[in-house]
């Protein structure tokens, strides 16, 4: 049963994996080969593009397209729990992100590992970015579980990103300019997945705390979204 759900999602989503791989690997290879910028710049652009932009592209139609097409009701009417349906969709979405990030990381390591940046640093940067990308996809999909169009899902993803950026830098900015030097608690950034980026560059203690908090967030969001998915409220035509 789960295998059939995975098969369905894979067939529906595999073109995105191919497209994202072509985009990211192509960009990295071209950038590193042409050497118009420092390897670090190419590496950071590829990693950030892969973790902040492409997850929105991957996640925007995981549910919304089925809802718009009208096949979601057929899926939900099957004797399978909404938790499993959502879990499989997220699994394939996350797999897509891991897949293209792995392809880009491998390309960069093979072409420029140890040239200007150590291979270990490239891998840890991509590991952190993959975590952020996966978290973004899950947050976006869960928060947009009832959205009826891909565009609205993408907007939810962008809002999530903006909120993360604001909690990362906004409080500092507001505190120093408007609130007499008030500074936010040091743990504040940990509440959103961008902390994973920092975690990937710091000690393992910090990494465990950051990853643990993100896992907790993801589990809570997943349970909330799955229950909303299973109960279609409102006259859905």
């Amino acid at each position, binding site marked *: *049963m789960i*295998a059939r759900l995975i098969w369905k999602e894979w067939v529906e989503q595999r073109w995105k994996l191919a497209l994202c791989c072509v985009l990211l690997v192509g960009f990295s290879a071209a950038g590193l080969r042409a050497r118009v910028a420092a390897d670090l710049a190419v590496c950071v652009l590829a990693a950030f593009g892969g973790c902040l932009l492409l997850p929105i592209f991957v996640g925007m139609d995981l549910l919304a397209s089925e809802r718009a*097409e009208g096949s979601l009701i057929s899926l939900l*009417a*099957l*004797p399978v729990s909404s938790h499993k349906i959502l879990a499989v969709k997220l699994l394939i979405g996350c797999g897509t992100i891991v897949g293209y990030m792995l392809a880009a990381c491998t390309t960069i390591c093979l072409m420029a590992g140890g040239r200007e940046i150590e291979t270990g640093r490239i891998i840890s940067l991509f590991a952190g970015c993959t975590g952020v990308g996966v978290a973004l996809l899950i947050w976006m999909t869960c928060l947009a579980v009832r959205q009826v169009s891909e565009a609205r899902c993408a907007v939810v993803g962008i809002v999530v990103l903006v909120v993360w950026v604001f909690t990362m830098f906004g409080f500092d900015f507001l505190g120093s300019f408007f609130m007499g030097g008030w500074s936010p608690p040091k743990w504040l950034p940990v509440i959103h997945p961008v902390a994973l980026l920092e975690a990937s560059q710091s000690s393992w203690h910090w990494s465990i705390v950051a990853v643990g908090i993100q896992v907790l967030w993801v589990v809570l969001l997943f349970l909330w979204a799955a229950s909303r998915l299973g109960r279609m*409220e409102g*006259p859905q035509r």
Partner: protein
Amino acid sequence: MSQYAIEIRGLVKRFGDKTVLGDVTFQVPKGKTYAFLGRNGAGKTTTIRILLGLLRADGGQVSVLGLDPARQALEIRRRVGYLAEDQRMFGWMRVRQLLDFIAPFYPHWNHSLAERLAGRLELPMNTRVRHLSKGHTVRLGLLLAVAHRPELVILDDPTLGLDPIMRKEFLRDVVSYLQSIETTVFFSSHLLYEIEPVADMVGILEGGRIVLQSATDTLREQVKQLVLSTEDYRRVSPLPRELDVVIRGQQTAVVVADTEAACRAASKAGVRPTVINLNLDEIFEAYVTGKGEKTLDSQADLERVG
């Protein structure tokens, strides 16, 4: 064990401030074909989604095959076949792929029955679902709804969008087939004339309530139109259990829910009305749009009524 496949008591469902279902009560006996009638937007689909556990009821008791949809939705979906209104499936799959995809979800899926039905319904197995005609899509949905040998089949306006010939074929072939294997059929529709030949029971949903539940034959026996002169009507008015009154100049047509009682009341006053049998369509119209006296004066009105 309950004699009912579906039992609903005092069902309430609200969407925000709007009460879609208010105190809905009805029962569907096992092995019967139940026509669930109502106008568009009456709440038929909402009721069906509550039966399948896809929507949560705000009040009342619901039981499907003795199970509670709020807590045992998956078990209900395993044992019930469901054909949704304007059902869309995964367009990129071929018909055979779709059958292979759906089968593992049902422990009692019968592959040979599915093959047989596919042949009988003339489904092109290698065609993508998105390329199927409307008629084939409905047939495919039906195959998916019955190939696991469900105890209860819920058909939510399944013939919507089909041409009249296809609708007739659908009812003749499908409902007759389901009746022949003694499956309970819960058939929602607003096209009453097509349900009439196959329904054992009828429930009419109007204004968020069941305004009528009855065996089809009993309903036809009890609900009739009485035609009498307007002067006579003024003398005997109101007749017992009037549903609809149309005054056409010198003549008045009254639809009553208890013909016997109405004729008795009329004859007491020395009036002998002409009794006209009604089809389900006209009965439904009397229940949902009647309950008032209408005076038709213009020629157009007279022609419209008939």
